[in-house]
Every structure is written in C-alpha cells, then in structure tokens.
C-alpha cells in the first residue's frame, strides 16, 4: 500500500487533489481511497487530505501517519505546519515552489522534489489552480499512475475548456519531472 498526504490551504483544492489521485489510480486498475481531514473550513487555513493506493480493497480508516509521499501545495506551510511529520526513509516530498530543494530542511532520508506549479498554472490556466500540475508531477515521479488515467480523472470532473486546460497543466507537471 502506498500512502499519500497532501498539505494545502483552504481553497487550493487539496481534497480535490486527493480525490483525483484516487480516481486516476482506480482507472489504472488499482484500488484507491481518498479522504479529507476536515478542520475549520475556511479559505487560507491549513488543510490536509489523504489518499491510499493498493492492489486490493483498502480497509484502513485511520489518518496517514507515515506517508510514502507528501504533496505540499503551498511552500509557506513549511514554516507553520510540521509537513514532514511521520516522514520515513524513502518518503518523497513534492513541493510547489520556485525555490530550489536546498532551501528546505527535510528529515534525513526524505527526498525533496520542487515544481513551480503556481507559475505554470498562471501560464496555462490563467489562475493559480495548482493541483492538476502537482497531480501530473506526482503521477510521473511515483510511477503509480499513467498520464492517460490522470487525463481521464480530470476530464470526468472538469468539462470542456477547463478540462482541456487542466489536462495540459497536468501534462506539463508530468514532463517537468525527469526520472
């Protein structure tokens, strides 16, 4: 089982990101689960969402304490929230930032990958909608989800032009990861 924890701010679509990961993985033939950690629901407040992927039905209902992947949608969270909590050797942290990975202090054994998702989103979508770029990047770096499944999950949620733009954004996220 692979466990993913997403840190974002209210309004950034952290819950949607978790759901898209689960849906895309499901379309690729895996079992998946996505759920939010609802706190105080307001824009800007730190929020957490979770996803689990496995080759069998996922029964576990606890929150995620030892994530295999951490997706940080807003780099300013790193100062106020212990986003690396529970990270273990081999955990990969994907951070939306224009800074380089050496600017972040992660626990030993945690691999940091940075993607300037906000910058790309403003270029492609025209709005700071970052989660589809991070979804594409996550799919590539984890090797758990195909770009085709990512596209299908996005198009099921966003129709027409918005869907096209988000798929293009996800593709850019996919391409930016060189592995």
């Amino acid at each position, binding site marked *: 089982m692979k466990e993913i924890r997403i840190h974002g701010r209210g309004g950034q679509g952290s819950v949607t990101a*978790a*759901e898209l990961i*689960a*849906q895309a993985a*499901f*379309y690729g033939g895996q*079992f*998946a*689960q*996505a*759920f*939010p950690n*609802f706190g105080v629901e307001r824009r800007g407040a730190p929020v957490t969402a979770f996803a689990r992927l496995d080759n069998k*039905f*996922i*029964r*576990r*209902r*606890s*929150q995620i*304490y030892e994530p295999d992947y951490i997706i940080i949608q807003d780099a300013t969270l790193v100062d106020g929230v212990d986003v690396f909590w529970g990270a273990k050797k081999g955990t990969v942290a994907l951070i939306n930032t224009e800074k380089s990975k050496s600017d972040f202090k992660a626990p030993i054994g945690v691999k940091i990958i940075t993607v300037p998702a906000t910058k790309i989103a403003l270029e492609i979508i025209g709005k700071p909608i970052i989660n589809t770029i991070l979804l594409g990047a996550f799919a590539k770096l984890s090797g758990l989800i195909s770009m085709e499944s990512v596209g299908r999950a996005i198009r099921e949620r966003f129709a027409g032009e918005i869907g096209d733009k988000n798929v293009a954004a996800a593709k850019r996220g996919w391409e930016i990861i060189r592995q």
Partner: protein
Amino acid sequence: MKILEGSRAIAETINNIGPEVVSAYPITPQTHIVEDLAKLKADGLADYEYVRAESEFAAISIVEGAAAMGVRTYTATSSQGLLLMTEVLFNVAGMRLPMVLTCANRAVSAPINIWNDQQDAVTMRDSGWLMWFGEDNQEVCDLHILAYKVAEKLALPVMVNLDGFVLTHVVEPVEIESPAKIKKFLPRYKPQAVLDVKKPLTFGAFATPAHYFEIRQELHDDIVSSQKVIKSEMKKFKEIFGRQLGLIEYYGDKNAEIVIVAMGSVIGTIKDVADKLKKFGKKIGVLKVVSLRPFPDEEIIKALIKAKNIAVIDKSVSLGTEGILATEIRRALYGDKKKVVSYVMGLGGRDITEKMIEGIYSGIKKENKKVVLAGK
C-alpha cells in the same frame, strides 16, 4: 464498479431503490447525501418528490406522513438532527411504519463538534428502530437495499448508520446496483394499511393500560424475531447481488483468546491490525457487530465461544457507565467468565490508529479496569 464519494454512492443507491417522497434538512456530515438527492431531482434524474423541510423534526414528520399514506420514503440526518427527530422516531416505530433513515454518525453537543463518533445513533437504541452499522460504503449501500426489504416485510423502521466523514466523505470503489436488479430483490412496495379519506383509519391511536402493554410487547417480540427474516433476506440478497451480508461477521483466528468487538468503519482498521499481528504469529479475532437492533445474542455467544479476553470498542459512552456495545456484549455473555473490557474511543472525531488497536491487544490481559476511556 465506480469510484465515488460515499455520500454520492448512497444517494445513487437510494434513487435506484425508488422512494416516492424524500424529505431532509441538511446537517454536517449528512449534507452531501441530501444535496446529491436534491441535485438528482433537479437534473430530472429522479422520480421522487423532494420536500425541503425547515428542521429535522419537520423532515421526519413529512416522511412519517408520507409513509402513513402508503409510499416508500427516505430521509437522512446526523447528530443534533437525529436528536431533534427523537419524538417522531419513537412514533414511527410504534405506528409500525416501514421507513428507512440514514444516520451519518457524528458526535453530539455540547461542546459542539461536527466530527464522527456514534453517540447520536446509540442514543436512539430504545426507539424501536432496527439499527445497522456499515463497515465500508459497499456494505452501507447494500444495507440500504436490504433495509427497505426488511422494513416493508415486517413493518419496522430501519436506521442505516455510517461513520460521518470517515465513510460519507471518502472516495472509494462501490458497486452501484441498477434499478432493474434492485427490483428483483425489492419489489414495488404494497402497503397493508394506509391513511385514506375514503376508508378512514387512525394510526398511533390512544391506548389505555388495557391495550398499551400488549402493543409494546408485540413490537418487542417482532424486533426479536426479525433476525430470522433478516437472515433469510440476506441469503436472497447474496443470490442476486453476490455479496454476503450478516448480522455479525467474525474475522481472523477462530481460536483466538483475544477478540476485539466493534461497529462501523473502525472494523477495517482492526482487520488490518489483525493481519499484521498474524504475520508475527499472534492470534487475534475481530467481531463486527452490524446489527445493534435486533441484537443477535445467540450468534455473538457462538462467535465468542473461544474468546477469553474481549475488548469492546465503542465510539460512544453511556456517561457514567461504559460504552453501549460493551454493555450489550456483557449482557449477552452474562454468567460466562470471560473478561470484557469496554474501550471508549474516537469520541468527537479522535482518530483511532493501528497503534491504539495494537495497544489494546497487548494490554487487555493485564487491564484491571472494566472501562477504559482511551483517547490516545
């Protein structure tokens, strides 16, 4: 099989079951279920009448009236909403109206808390409703289909419970059964007695000491004997849908001396812990109680025959005593020398982790308290 939010899965299943009247008042974490039902109606994808209510008391009263007119109904609520329905819930059962209600389980005030525990539902234990608890959204959807069948067959209302947020807001795979397939199991509802101006009847009429006792006794007896009907319907359910339902489910080592008993979604986490412990050669059993009412005493006694140390996890507490399921288990096992410890956990959305479950396994033999409020 589709991947979708639990609330959406329930709404689609309810729509496919085909109630004629839906009435509800939105409350977290039930909201998405009734929003989806309202949207299905607004999009022209549903045939029911959707009646917006001004409170939960009104919502349950509206479906009560509709049920008395002889139609299939649906409502859903949580927490304070369920508490506000209390008076009508008792009436519905007393009038033998075959209704189905979903409770997205949530803590009760005060202090106000929107997160999951099961205090709301268990507080309605004595209302005369059959009360079932699902482990995952597939089971929850299946229990709804079964609930209508049993309710309409026995003239007893059924409350289907699922953990708020944990199940209502999780996106996971669920098989949504089609109207045609559901119809094979659940035929069109044919009411026996209905309110009709041409043939006037009185429901829930005044009963003096000369009759009240027998009427209540009949309700009690029918709830006890409902087990047989539920089990035979579960068999038919399996023939049509291929999935096994049960009043209880035992998982893990049949000879385990330590057994953990619980209701609802936490069972999934406990099963994972059981598998992990098994790898280390440790024996543990898991008993899932699906049906709090009727309470399957005999099946539970049988399932716990080899158990010596029984941990009952409740996401609720009868303040001043212990967890409500724990009391039920103790009652069922009365006279036996088994050790039963009530672990009250997860109140107000406190996460129940695998470590906490492992802690129960390793600690129960030495535990000398009858009740442990285990917040950590």
